[in-house]
């Protein structure tokens, strides 16, 4: 990869302040981009020698492949309780990834008491409560059912919550916004199983319970369970991994992750929600009045620039590609705007197709940095017309003690030395 930024033709005028260029420029000009992604961290290798790996046989086959040994930094960052190592989270390194699919080994984790080692032959899914015919399934039986696949994001309700802090957190993007990941999930529409068990019309909620230590439980509204909820068995083509709920989990596209119960083993149909700890003490949002919002299931539209971003450094003025992710729990991302002048002017980014509902959407925009300090922002607009709010707007509405469901516009200051830092601006 060339360390030298490529200069665009001089006649290409910026479309917004700070050097933002037309989103179609790369397509039109056919310019190869040297500054993309980690190329921002340019290196100076002597490229004239034949590399040593061309002069000796390579390594053997492997039963299950692993990332390059040079990609040691593309890892989940673990934040767990020292006295209870199974209680905590690990973050997806969004700042080290491109495209829209999160590798399975990098999908974020939230465990309340460790990852259970479930024997699939002994695992059963039980449906009981307000069903005319309570039933139980083994995995062998479930594999005969019709399956569908869909790509969607899974995002923790507490993702990005450092945004409520008084001071902007200085950490790579993934360790701020990486309690969100996106996969292709394959499984059985839950409605098929609810239908078979004879769901009663008076059932309004399903209490879903995992087979982990602590039997994590939450209440799911029946409308969602009958709509697009999946009993997922596969993630990105392979069986769901233990830390993602092996052998089965719920996927509720667009809903906060805690409802996407992992290690699912029991669904109880009921009239009223259970009011479990994870829908009262947690995953509710305290408002300035002292009251709290509850059952705020849908993750609102959010976007974040992943490159360039804090922890990386721009190597001098020139042409770069801004790249990031946007998603909305209400539907499809319609537009992402980028500003390179702190929000005074905006330019629409190119959205990577296909545009999928409730799924990560990759956005990109060419940018010619002239070396002066400025502030980068992105804002997402979804197909309901909802626009990601500025931080000041979000705080005016919700205060700063809500903890969950933070989705404000994120701003990075680019300094003249090319370094980036998170700012409130």
């Amino acid at each position: 990869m060339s360390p030298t930024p490529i200069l665009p033709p001089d006649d290409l005028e910026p479309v917004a302040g700070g050097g933002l260029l037309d989103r179609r420029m790369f397509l039109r000009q056919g310019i190869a981009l040297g500054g993309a992604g980690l190329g921002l961290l340019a290196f100076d290798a002597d490229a004239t020698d034949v590399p040593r790996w061309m002069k000796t046989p390579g390594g053997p086959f492997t039963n299950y492949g692993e990332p390059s040994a040079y990609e040691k930094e593309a890892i989940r960052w673990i934040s767990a309780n020292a006295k209870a190592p199974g209680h905590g989270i690990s973050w997806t390194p969004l700042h080290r990834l491109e495209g829209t699919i999160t590798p399975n080994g990098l999908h974020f984790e939230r465990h309340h008491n460790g990852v259970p080692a479930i024997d699939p032959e002994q695992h059963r899914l039980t449906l009981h409560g307000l069903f005319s015919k309570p039933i139980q399934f083994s995995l062998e039986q479930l594999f005969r059912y019709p399956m569908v696949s869909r790509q969607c994001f899974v995002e923790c309700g507490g993702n990005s919550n450092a945004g409520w802090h008084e001071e902007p957190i200085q950490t790579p993007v993934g360790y701020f916004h990486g309690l969100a990941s996106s996969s292709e999930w394959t499984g059985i529409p839950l409605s098929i199983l609810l239908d078979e068990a004879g769901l009663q019309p008076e059932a309004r909620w399903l209490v879903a319970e995992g087979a982990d230590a602590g039997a994590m439980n939450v209440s799911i509204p029946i409308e969602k369970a009958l709509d697009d909820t999946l009993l997922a068995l596969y993630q990105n083509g392979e069986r769901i991994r233990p830390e993602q709920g092996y052998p089965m989990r719920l996927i509720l596209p667009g809903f906060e992750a805690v409802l996407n119960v992992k290690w699912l083993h029991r669904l109880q149909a009921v009239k009223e929600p259970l009011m479990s700890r994870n829908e009262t003490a947690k995953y509710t949002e305290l408002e300035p009045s002292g009251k709290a919002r509850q059952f705020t299931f849908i993750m609102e539209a959010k976007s974040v620039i992943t490159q360039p971003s804090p922890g990386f450094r721009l190597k001098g003025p020139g042409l770069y590609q801004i790249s990031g992710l946007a998603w909305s729990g209400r539907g499809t991302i319609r537009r992402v705007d980028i500003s390179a002048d702190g929000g005074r002017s905006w330019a629409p980014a190119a959205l990577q197709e296909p545009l999928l509902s409730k799924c990560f959407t990759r956005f990109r925009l060419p940018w010619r940095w002239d070396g002066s300090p400025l502030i980068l922002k992105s804002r997402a607009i979804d197909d309901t017309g909802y626009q990601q709010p500025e931080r000041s707007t979000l705080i005016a509405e919700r205060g700063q003690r809500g903890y969950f469901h933070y989705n404000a516009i994120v701003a990075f200051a680019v300094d003249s030395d090319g370094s980036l830092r998170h700012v409130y601006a």
Partner: protein
Amino acid sequence: MSMPSLSSPSRSGLRRVGRAHLFIGLLLPLWTPLLAVPEGPKLGVSITQESILPLDISVFPEGTGLPPGKGTAVEGKMQFEALCQGCHGVKGSGGDAEELVGRSPLNGSRPDQTVGNYWPYATTIFDYIRRAMPLNAPLSLSNDQVYALTAYLLYLNGIVTETSEMNATT
């Protein structure tokens, strides 16, 4: 490992889905059981509501699911000191784990969200302690222990008295 055998959906099954969607889209935005659902092989094994009881540990706000047993804060204090204090701190405060006690107003600047001011719900506390606590041995407590611990947490937060009995009807 043997691969599961796959059955393809029948043509009649596919037609059924198509018609159902059309019907729903035109007339019924509300959910109606049995209409818009693709056909499955119906392999679920029938069970009785009774046979599920050992697995059913849900406790609902009106008290459904509460088991026989009882306890008071006096008894709960002993259980707490033996089982919980190591992580949650003396009297549920100042430990590494969740802050359990506190009644500061929720509209203050930095309120701790505790049992006292945020989730003072006896059935929620019972449901959670029984299934999840202590972390090193979930589902190990007797019903009497869980009732006593629930009583103790409510007592520490000034919601019940030290000798109030917690049981399935209180």
